[in-house]
């Protein structure tokens, strides 16, 4: 049996996908040439002041609710003071003692074992800029300054790299599911620091821990945990004392290296930011945000399979993409054939760009036989091009199915008269021959006949011959 176990806590930073930054009106998304997505406020020019973007509070609270946290009624912003060229004000506006969310948890399943991992807190803060090093010197790019972040701090409940991985995967799934971030480690919209110590199995004390920073993939996180655990065991076995420090992981050598020792680390001199007012979330705010929290992804999947009778593969495809799943959910209860709705949506390359009401209307027109199964694609094309009411587009494009039985009667008679061979085949027992006749009916009605109705009518007439 193993002699040591790990005690791991994770600090995860996630960029919130709000339209604008946390304290100014600059766009919050990635991209743009250096220093083109910033203003005097996020560049910390003398005299400027921050104004809190309430959308950031809403997004963070929704993330907290998804992670079973208690959401504060009173919260505030604090200044974390330190000097660095990518931090224009020389302080980061963050939260110290009144975080927005506390006491959450998520359940993970590792090798069939259920484990609940506690979440200590989630707070909101601003991101810093980026240093760009070139041949002619270093520059600071402020585009990322003021991008809203949440920091999710776990309890030291994690014991293995596999649990850490499961925790992060589930965290990512849930945050994406609630729709406040895309959580992409490769682009930096999700980042993770690992706090790790070891202790003899059976011990409950916490020993000296190290922090591994700047890990940018799940693979590296898992490898770094294993490497750091091995190092700490080696040091302890060799009788050397561990120091509390920040380390980095080198994937080439599969080892961690010391970055700086904690004793000459910063004293951040936190204090409440006097430029900002306390964040108050009323009971009404709580209720409004609570109403936006979706059921869990696995509950949704079960509902699609059992209630809407979707094939498992279809249900999974929908649930893999939170935006698509939410769109589907918004339309599903207003249609007669949820399966048809799913098929129509999945047949479209960009379903999320079309409102739920339009999807519901298209589905219902199809299932009522008012348009045929090939009409939605044409209607979507027209809708994307010029917008407008679907009902009007149906008329404009002449996509209404022929409901006029008089006309259909006449066409059917014509077709039967003009195709004696197919008629003879059918009468001789070749049921497939009716397809040729159907094709003719559709051709003569320019596709406007309701196929079901036309087939019935043909069968009726042939039976009488």
């Amino acid at each position, binding site marked *: 049996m193993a002699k040591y176990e790990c005690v791991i806590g994770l600090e995860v930073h996630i960029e919130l996908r709000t339209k604008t930054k946390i304290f100014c009106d600059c766009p919050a998304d990635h991209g743009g040439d250096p220093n083109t997505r910033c203003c005097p406020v996020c560049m910390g020019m*003398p005299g400027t002041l921050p104004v809190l973007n309430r959308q950031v509070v809403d997004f963070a609270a929704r993330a907290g609710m998804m992670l079973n946290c208690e959401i504060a009624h009173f919260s505030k912003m604090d200044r974390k003071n330190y*000097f660095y060229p990518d931090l224009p*004000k020389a302080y980061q506006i963050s939260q110290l003692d009144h975080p927005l969310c506390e006491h959450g948890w998520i359940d993970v399943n590792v090798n069939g074992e259920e484990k609940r991992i506690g979440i200590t807190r989630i707070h909101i803060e601003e991101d810093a800029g980026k240093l760009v090093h070139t041949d002619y010197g270093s520059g600071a790019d402020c585009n990322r300054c003021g991008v809203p972040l949440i920091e999710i701090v776990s309890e030291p409940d994690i014991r293995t790299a596999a649990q850490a991985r499961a925790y992060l995967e589930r965290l990512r799934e849930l945050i994406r599911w609630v729709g406040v971030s895309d959580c992409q480690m490769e682009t930096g919209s999700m980042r993770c620091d690992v706090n790790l110590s070891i202790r003899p199995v059976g011990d409950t004390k916490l020993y000296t821990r190290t922090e591994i920073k700047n890990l940018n993939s799940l693979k590296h996180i898992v490898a770094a945990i294993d490497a750091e655990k091995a190092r700490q065991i080696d040091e302890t076995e060799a009788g050397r004392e561990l120091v509390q420090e920040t380390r980095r992981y080198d994937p080439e050598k599969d080892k961690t290296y010391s970055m700086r020792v904690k004793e000459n680390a910063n004293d951040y001199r936190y204090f409440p930011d006097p430029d900002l007012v306390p964040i108050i979330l009323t009971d009404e705010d709580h209720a409004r945000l609570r109403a936006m929290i979706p059921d869990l992804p696995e509950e949704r999947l079960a509902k699609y399979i059992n209630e809407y009778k979707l094939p498992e593969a279809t249900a999974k495809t929908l649930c893999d993409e939170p935006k698509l799943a939410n769109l589907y959910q918004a339309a599903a209860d207003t249609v007669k054939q949820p399966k048809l709705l799913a098929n129509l949506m999945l047949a479209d390359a960009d379903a999320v760009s079309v409102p739920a009401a339009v999807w519901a209307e298209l589905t219902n027109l199809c299932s009522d036989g008012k348009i045929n199964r090939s009409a939605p694609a044409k209607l979507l094309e027209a809708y994307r091009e010029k917008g407008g009411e679907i009902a009007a587009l149906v008329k404009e494009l002449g996509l209404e199915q022929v409901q006029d039985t008089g006309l259909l009667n006449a066409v059917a008679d014509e077709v039967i008269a003009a195709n004696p061979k197919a008629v003879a085949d059918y009468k001789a027992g070749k049921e497939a021959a009716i397809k040729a006749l159907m094709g003719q009916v559709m051709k003569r009605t320019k596709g406007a006949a309701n196929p079901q109705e036309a087939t019935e009518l043909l069968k009726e007439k042939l039976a009488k011959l």
Partner: protein
Amino acid sequence: MRYSEMDIAALSKLLQNKEVTAKELAADALKAIAETDGQFGAYLTVAEEEAYKQAEIADKMLADGTAGALTGIPFAMKDNICTKGIRTTCASKMLENWLPVYDACVTEQLKKAGAVMLGKTNMDEFAMGSSSENSALQLTRNPAAPDYVPGGSSGGSAAAVAANECAFAIGSDTGGSIRQPASFCGVVGMKPTYGTVSRYGLVAYASSFDQIGPLTKTVADNAKVLEAISCHDRRDSTSLPEFDTNYSALIGKDLSGMRIGLPKEYFGEGINADVAALVQNAAKALEGAGAKIEECSLPAVSYALPAYYVLCCAEASSNLARFDGIRYGYRAEGAEDLDRLYRKTRTEGFGREVRRRILLGNYVLSAGYYDAYYKKAQQARTLLIRAFRELFSQYDMLLAPVAPTPAYKIGEKSSDPMEMALGDICTVPVNLGGLPAISVPCGTVAQDGANLPVGFQLIGPAFSEAKLYQAAAAYEECGV
């Protein structure tokens, strides 16, 4: 009487009656500056070209009937308030050549009103000081007695008004920086309720105390300027939502029934006897005008000075951290690495008093000291706010000296920061409470052949500006 000697009300009438143009007023004011400012040093920057441009706009407004009370009126701006494209130095080597890329809210408001900015005025570096001697760029003299300081930190603004180098000036008051120089120079200065005037574009010293306000020749002028600059501004989270800005409303109404308290702590030890006598005379005059005067007590005021210095230095240490030589402003030469660049830049770029307050602020916020200093000071602030609230349940306003002494000689106290700080004892309680207070001239003290102006202050509860102006105007009517 020369235009530059007139108050806003008189100039406004001349402009409205087309007896003078804004351009002529600007020319006259610029001439006055050229004639006398070599002696007084009120201005750090004279923006002649921009003044004429603004005067042209004002003349158009006057012609097309969109003019208001301040249209065409020449004024001076304290140099810690941002003016787009016009250097804003905070009287510091750190920002000696800094050109803001945006206008402060106050700058916008005054432009909108058609007022004509003549230039930017000297001050204590980053508004830290009480004599303007902490300016790294220039010495300002008191126009009433040139060997004496004009007070501070808005010393340049007060001196510019007193020297008739503008019709009004804008200052900022963190611990008395409008009221004390107004008292020393013999002009009217208002520190409004916290949140009345947007701080957007005011280079922050201590954010929870800083408040912009007007310095003028008369009380009525002062109310007019405050009406123009106060507004709700969504860019400042501490800006108050919609509120009544009709500050002139009560001027001229009689004072009967008004209750004014004289807190005895303001008249005790350390207060110059001549100053106390002048302030007592002012109280008598107000009594004569119909107010009921009564002695009262505000013992919590003894916490004010230490609490103020702890809190404002803490905020300043963080607010001034952005001046690191990386993006704008002064950068030291010859630093070998980043840490040394920060240290050298900030050591060379800031003056002694600024460095002292930054160090003090960092100390009180340090791990292990926070509870003993910062937290305790916040508690003292809360106690003081409560004590004020209690007094205002009995009195409409309080009357007190602005400073324990009249202006002192240049160089007399600049070597003793402690004595300088004690001079703020009468003004800082107002800032801790976020309250409005107005400084009104009430006579002079003769000293070494100079006649040194003295002011008293009226302190009211939040949003009582209109009442303060009412009482101050009544005093002005019957006073000195």
